[in-house]
């Protein structure tokens, strides 16, 4: 779920913008300029994947993907996510323009954490990769939901109820995403293992 315009206090919206811009600046500066077009093209596939709805009982959910993006892109995930969110806001109004900073942090930070954890824990077998992939995918959603709840709670006591409900509403998404994430990682491990753990930017040892 993306935060719409007008929900956050202006100071929080502006503050998260500044943090996001700083993060972007840092990413752009540390990355190899030549890799940027590649990250952009990969971002479009994440964008497309996040638009696909999966059936869940009488309703359907779509994936948030912070965990998977983190696992696949590592440190460059933040950049990829900001680009994707900007276009989502621009094209579909998924997430408000003034809340873009907050939304970027909500998805980008979990991606970085998940990317780090996946690389640390994934091990060398297909099973451990799939399991860790599944865990970080679920964790990504959980962290995103927590950050969302935190942002909502900055609006004051009136928003506590919404924050709690948003948190609960993310539980089914978390389960679905953990399962799909595990299947994606296990598929990639079987078919194209070099994609996992090989960042687009050359590996810094």
């Amino acid at each position, binding site marked *: 779920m993306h935060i719409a*315009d007008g*929900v956050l206090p202006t100071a929080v919206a502006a503050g998260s913008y500044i943090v996001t811009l700083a993060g*972007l600046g840092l990413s*752009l500066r540390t990355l190899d300029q030549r890799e940027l077009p590649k990250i952009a093209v990969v971002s479009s596939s994440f964008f497309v994947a996040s638009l696909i709805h999966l059936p869940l009982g009488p309703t359907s959910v779509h994936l948030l993907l912070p965990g998977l993006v983190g696992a696949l892109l590592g440190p460059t995930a933040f950049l990829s996510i900001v680009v994707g969110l900007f276009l989502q806001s621009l094209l579909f109004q998924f997430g408000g323009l003034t809340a873009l900073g907050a939304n970027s942090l909500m998805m980008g930070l979990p991606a970085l954490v998940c990317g780090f954890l996946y690389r640390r824990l994934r091990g060398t077998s297909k099973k451990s990769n799939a399991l860790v992939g599944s865990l970080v995918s679920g964790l990504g959603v959980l962290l995103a939901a927590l950050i969302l709840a935190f942002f909502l709670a900055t609006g004051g006591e009136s928003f506590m*109820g919404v924050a709690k409900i948003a948190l609960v509403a993310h539980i089914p998404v978390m389960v679905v995403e953990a*399962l*799909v*994430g595990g299947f994606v990682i296990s598929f*990639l491990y079987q*078919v194209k293992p070099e994609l996992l753990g090989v960042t687009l930017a050359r590996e810094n040892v």
Partner: protein
Amino acid sequence: MNFDQAHVIVLNGVQTMSLFSCLFLPFFCALVAWLLKAEESTSAGQKTEPDWSSPVLDRHGQGSSLFHTWAPSIKIATLLIAAFVIVSLHTLAWALTALFCCALCVELTGMSWTRPLRRLAALGGFLGMLVVIVPLTSPVQSGETVLVLPGLPEWPYSLAGAHLALTIVCKAMAVALLMEPMLATSSLPQTLQGFTDLGLPASLNQMILLCHRYIFVFQEEMRRMQRSMRVRGFVPRTNIATLRTMGSGFGMLFIRSFERTERVYEAMLSRGYQGSFPAEVRQKITNMDLVKGVLFIMIAAILLAGDRLLPLILF
């Protein structure tokens, strides 16, 4: 819950119904209008193909409105400030005024309302949740009016919460309406060039353009893959097998996108790419652009001043 100090009004079922239908009226109207538009465009059948041989400002409408002729950088700067001003409003009356102003902006562009309405429809879920939850869960202050809904004695409906929620709804809708005049009255490359002129890194601009271009390519690839699943009898259901299949599908999508990045990059290199896109000719900033900027900032300032100095309480 203790709400002794509050002003309690007990509602019956009919009143509750009418209250909620009032709250959801804006969404309902937007949805109906959008559906009507959609119906219109399909029944009209063959839409005429726009003339692609001259530079189009935006594929959804060529126009000569004040937004279309406004230099993108000043336009974006002005409207971005306006958007932040709008989200800073606290009172419903002024938020409604802002919503009205933004609707006027859309009307001034002379463009179809289909896309602005679709934007409002996209907001429906989030805002609908706010409208229901915030008034029911807001802490009740002393001297405040609460409504007790039939069957929900534990969850008083706070009018202050309703005011807050509706203010947010108006603000979100206002900014959503402002998106079209701000970002869709120039072509995407021009709009992004506007951001670059404002100081956004040019490399980010190019990433967004590239990402936008390949969304369409991957969407087509995903659509084809889903189609080839469907003709082999696949129907998505709530079960593990569906998630496994979709997981493979996503995995394939990612692999193909990684493979494509390499090919696109080679194609770019082979045509002399050296790390940056060749610059477009920039639109010159005229005095008129600045006049428009000042005008809009003034309107925004009036909204904010009114909001803080003249807070009209509707209920």
